[in-house]
């Protein structure tokens, strides 16, 4: 075997050691190759060759699995040798990403983007994908660090602007689908929606993006996760009252929101007294009804003082998909009798889970808007629907 013979004849030659290491590496005999990459680091005066060998040692250990600490050690050696080269930073960030060490992953990407000379010929044989690789790693790390907006922005930038190998492309597409439910994400942004099914966007659509609105939220649960009112409060300065029966949810809500959440049984609460005491006027903008189970939502509906107060928008959760209950029909009859018009029926986040109806008040919302938004179906796959409007 020529590479071995050459090495034997000159075991302190950097070229000979490198070629023998590569012979083993290409056969996926990573243990065999390590010793000879190490020999290169011992005998070579060529910093670039040493750099490549240190990275190859790291890659060998990586490919053997479960040697993360050692892998990182050799990549750090490489960085310390040629800190302006990007390859070792990228592999280090990738290693941190795989270990779910998001902050370290993100930080090394940032350092690399700041420090590296990207005009240098990239060493793609070291599994370095190019400068965009740091963006990819940041898109993953930033998501898990709670920087969702940044993650989404990077993902969409990569999707629209960068030619990537299939594995990366699929990962980016997967991330976008996870966020938007579709690759056709151009209209709404994730930042502009906190609801489970774009209810907040629907309320804004129906009220023409009203500022300083008023809401009554029955069944608040979380201050912002799947919240229909968080966006309204935060970005549109709405005031409102929320109710929830779970004391922990109420404490959490009030700790993170400015608008109040009351701990109460929504089926027995005296809404009229509360709303009277607030003195916010007869016409409110939004009523959310979402209790568990569907029977309680209907009982809560019965408590609302519709004779005294009107709501421009109502979202009513009947959970038809899981209970096949009578309350969808009963609530529809009742709300119609109170002057509301069913505009979006059987809202579903997928193709098979109709759980909610959306209503508008026929006197408080103009007819054109009602007609424009109207979608009466057995299933309204809401992601498909909402993109036509936002």
């Amino acid at each position, binding site marked *: 075997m020529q590479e071995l013979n050459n090495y034997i004849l000159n075991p302190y030659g950097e070229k000979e050691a490198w070629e023998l290491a590569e012979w083993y590496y290409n056969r*996926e*005999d990573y243990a065999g190759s390590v010793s000879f990459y190490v020999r290169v680091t011992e005998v070579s005066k060529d910093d670039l060759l040493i750099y490549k060998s240190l990275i190859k040692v790291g890659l060998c250990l990586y490919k053997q699995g479960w040697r993360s600490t050692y892998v990182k050690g050799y990549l750090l050696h490489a960085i310390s040798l040629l800190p302006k080269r990007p390859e070792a930073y990228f592999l280090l960030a990738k290693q941190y990403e795989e270990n779910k060490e998001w902050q370290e992953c993100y930080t090394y990407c940032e350092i690399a983007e700041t420090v590296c000379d990207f005009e240098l010929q990239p060493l793609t044989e070291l599994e370095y994908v190019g400068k965009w690789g740091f963006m990819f790693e940041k898109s993953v790390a930033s998501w898990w660090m709670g920087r969702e907006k940044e993650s989404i922005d990077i993902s969409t930038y990569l999707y629209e602007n960068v030619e990537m190998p299939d594995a990366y492309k699929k990962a980016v597409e997967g991330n976008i689908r996870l966020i938007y439910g579709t690759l056709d994400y151009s209209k709404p942004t994730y930042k502009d929606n906190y609801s489970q099914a774009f209810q907040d966007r629907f309320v804004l659509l129906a009220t023409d993006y009203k500022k300083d609105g008023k809401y009554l939220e029955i069944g608040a649960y979380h201050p912002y996760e799947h919240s229909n009112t968080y966006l309204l409060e935060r970005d549109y300065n709405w005031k409102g009252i929320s109710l929830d029966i779970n004391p922990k949810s109420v404490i959490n809500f009030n700790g993170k929101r400015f608008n109040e959440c009351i701990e109460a049984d929504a089926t027995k609460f005296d809404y009229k007294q509360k709303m009277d005491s607030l003195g916010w006027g007869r016409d409110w903008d939004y009523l959310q009804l979402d209790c568990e189970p569907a029977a309680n939502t209907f009982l809560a509906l019965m408590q609302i003082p519709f004779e005294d107060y009107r709501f421009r928008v109502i979202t009513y959760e009947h959970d038809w998909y899981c209970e096949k209950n009578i309350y969808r029909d009963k609530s529809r009859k009742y709300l119609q009798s109170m002057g509301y018009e069913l505009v979006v029926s059987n809202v579903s986040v997928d193709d098979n889970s109709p759980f909610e109806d959306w209503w508008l008040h026929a006197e408080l919302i103009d007819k054109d808007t009602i007609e424009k938004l109207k979608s009466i179906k057995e299933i309204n796959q809401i992601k498909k629907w909402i993109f036509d409007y936002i």
Partner: protein
Amino acid sequence: MAFNNLAKQVLENGGKIYPLTFPTQKKTALFNPSILVKDDRVWINVRHCQYTLIHTDSKWESRWGPLIYLNPENDITLTTTNFLCEWKDGELLNPTQIDTSFLDVKPQWEFVGLEDARLVDWNNKLYLTGVRRDTETTGIGRMELSEINNYKEVKRFRIPTPNNKESYCEKNWMPILDTPFHYVKWCNPVEIVKVNPGGDTEQVFLGKPIDGINDMRGGSQVISIGEHRFCIVHETWYWRNNQNNKDATYRHRILCFDNDWNIIHKTIPFNFMSGLIEFCCGLAEYKDKILITFGYSDNSAYLLELPKDYFLKLVYAGIE
């Protein structure tokens, strides 16, 4: 005086070197091979381990020092398995992991399996003989003799020590291929023991120490060529560097014994191919050649093929 690259010498004198490698599941180390010629066929046992050794004298050592075994982070054991293969036309054929399941019990220590096993044919039975350290929680090592039939370990005998029953680790005894159940246990002084499978071990010869030799620990099997016997031993140097990290080097010698077990020739110490950690546990005569198998840096395995005349010249005249 030491010689740093026996393989180069061999290549320049009509010999050859072959890598001994085959795909493994975890892409981990194949090393310390042993060799045996039986019925004109060449058999090789290769040790496999999931550790990866990094040994360097450069400034790019690991944070744990110049000599470090890198284990998987989910497995602290150093687990050895053995692969038996036929070697033909420079290639390893049909590498098959020895099935030890019939005799395995739950390991009690971190070093698991039969290490540095030498191939032996005694009384027309095939054996692997090496050290096992997993039977007690303290890591006590004893030589074992495993009978192999159709790639399966069918019998296992843990060999008692001949005299010091309290010794911690007995390893690298060199089986004498033409004298069943006899080993050269140590070479300075030469100590020969007879193993009685199922019974005690007897010391049957103890020579006189040789001055000026560090130590001569076992390595290959002991084979006979003509009227003499030969083996390859190793000498070790262990130390700690200024950071108190361990370091080591091994060097080898070929020894030649007369019929009375006097060492009549010994080469100067050598490395096979300039590695600081190399280990030999295979030596065989095959046609007009001598075959030596050795591991390099505990990461790879090789077969060095020497013309027999040249081998004898090396031993009788010394490596120059």
